[in-house]
């Protein structure tokens, strides 16, 4: 039955919704104003998207395992605070960076353990750790920003390498690494199997639980890494800075065509999803569209991309 159907589907109809929406936005905004399609503005959009890319890439893997990580935004926040506090206390950016990574990794491992070892559904497990990370972030700072970070950290966001802004290099490198990890390693094949057929993985002699823990650990680690960029961007750490970023990441993954079932993921789509949201926000700001309309537009974008995909997947 499925054979009959897919054979009849012309190749063009498989163009994912997110690609259509992104191209439409690019064309539309370019026509609407002269400032949009300039190298500086494109760099601007990409730099703004980097933090979300760093979260959305591992989120894609997590969603491919039929999981979810709601704690990412809060973990990023806490990692950012750990980073800033460590740098301020020790004066060593390297130690700070490691502290941020350690917080991220710790929470990632905890999420993985709750999901894989205890068997708590990912949504609830990470909702719980979201509360813990957010609570710790508020409690240790008493709601205050942490400032006094040396300029070496800020340069991670504002600096350039070979005339390319460092965040763009980091984003591209993260995507390249993610691509290698997902499509060229055993671990990547295991990610597909975790969502698609866990039994297959077990029978292949791999530990599905260990792999699942690794997936969440990667998510936490990336949140810890993204904390560096976020901290550099604000030149400070703030206990509410990352609130809600996990939902932006999940939305980007879904808009990018990754489904919540059977390990059907598309990493490049996630990249397109993040950029589409970034382009939309930037374009609307350049056109000085009122904020309330911007809010509605973001919702419309999410629904539209999924709607196009839903139309296409219909018989």
């Amino acid at each position: 039955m499925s054979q009959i159907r897919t054979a009849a589907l012309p190749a063009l109809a498989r163009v994912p919704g997110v690609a259509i929406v992104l191209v439409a936005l690019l064309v539309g905004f370019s026509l609407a104003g002269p400032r949009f399609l300039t190298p500086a503005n494109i760099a601007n959009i990409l730099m703004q998207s980097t933090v979300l890319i760093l979260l959305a890439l591992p989120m894609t893997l997590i969603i491919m395992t039929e999981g979810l990580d709601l704690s990412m935004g809060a973990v990023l926040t806490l990692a950012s605070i750990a980073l800033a506090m460590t740098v301020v206390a020790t004066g060593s950016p390297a130690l700070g960076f490691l502290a941020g990574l350690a917080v991220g990794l710790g929470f990632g491992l905890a999420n993985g353990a709750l999901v894989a070892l205890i068997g708590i559904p990912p949504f609830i497990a990470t909702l719980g750790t979201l509360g813990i990370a957010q609570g710790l972030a508020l409690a240790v700072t008493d709601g205050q920003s942490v400032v006094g970070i040396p300029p070496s950290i800020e340069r991670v966001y504002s600096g350039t390498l070979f005339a390319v802004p460092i965040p763009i290099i980091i984003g591209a490198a993260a995507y390249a690494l993610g691509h290698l990890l997902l499509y060229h390693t055993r671990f990547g094949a295991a990610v597909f199997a975790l969502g698609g057929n866990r039994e297959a993985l077990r029978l292949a002699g791999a530990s599905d639980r260990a792999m699942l823990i690794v997936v969440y650990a990667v998510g936490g680690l990336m949140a810890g890494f993204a904390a560096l960029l976020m901290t550099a961007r604000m030149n400070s750490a703030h206990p509410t800075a990352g609130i809600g970023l996990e939902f932006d990441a999940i939305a980007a993954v879904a808009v990018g065509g990754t489904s919540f079932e059977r390990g059907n993921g598309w990493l490049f789509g996630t990249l397109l999803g993040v950029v589409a949201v970034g382009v939309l926000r930037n374009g609307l700001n350049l056109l000085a569209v009122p904020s309330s309309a911007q809010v509605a537009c973001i919702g419309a974008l999410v629904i539209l991309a999924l709607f196009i995909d839903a139309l296409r997947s219909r018989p």
Partner: protein
Amino acid sequence: MKTIVSLAALVVLAGQVLAGPALAANETIAVFTKNQTNPYFQAVRVGSETAAKSLGAKVIQYIPTKPDSIPEQLSQVEDVIVKKPDAILFIPVDYKALVPAVEKINAAGIPVTNITDRIAGGKLVAYVGADDYNIGLATARHLLKQMGGKGNVVILEGVKGSLTNTDRVRGFNDALKENSGVKLLASQPANYQRLNALQVMENLIQSFPQIDGVLAANDPMAVGALEALDGANRKALVVGINGSKEAVEMIKAGRLLASGDFNGFIQGCLGVEIAIRNLRKEQTPKEIILKPVVIEKSNFQAYEAPVEQRTCPKLSDMVTN
């Protein structure tokens, strides 16, 4: 392909419709506020527009789509720098975390005027703000005087870590120190939110059989506390801060004792006026700190008019130093 073309056409059209007609104005001022929901910032926006209109300039409002989002305000600043307005009027979501944003504006050569929350760094044309500490102090003193210098009070704090909250609560506490007969029962945060304040107050009412006064760090919390007291059939004198429309009406009705005036409209007016006059190379003050005023039974009439109908005060009248 057809889908893309029609969607792109939609984007262009929507952009033009939503952006509205372009005004034939001399200068363009980008105004940054924290969120779309707090009436205080609406008053700032109305003030900025009123001032711009009278001076023949145009303002564009930038508000994070997610309320009080630091990363989003950072992105909006970056986007606005691409757009290159003539000047920027800036209320940072967080006075420390947005310093890099102001530095970027500086680097782009756009003059920036700061109002409300004083930014912790960067170069400013001017700062216009209220003195939160003194407002807190004056409002609390007003309450304590009405209480006759004795009794039990509770404090409802705003968002932890925000500059306004820290200073206001410090003012409250210093006023309390002057009155040894008053006992502070509890100081709990309710995040500047009405529903939070209502529930926190309900819980505090259960803990303390006698509460005579409530010091709320903003009006919505004061009103939430009043609703909780009414619900429990308890009486206490309540003060808030902001001088919002609602608070003024409740002062008139005798339910709210007083509200410290924290005037967004005037800050918006003055901020834009300074920004424009600075662009026009006129002499402008570097700093304006509004005098603390406590709105109460005797002086509320002046605050009854809705912000849209108010006129901006003269800049020269407001310069304190």
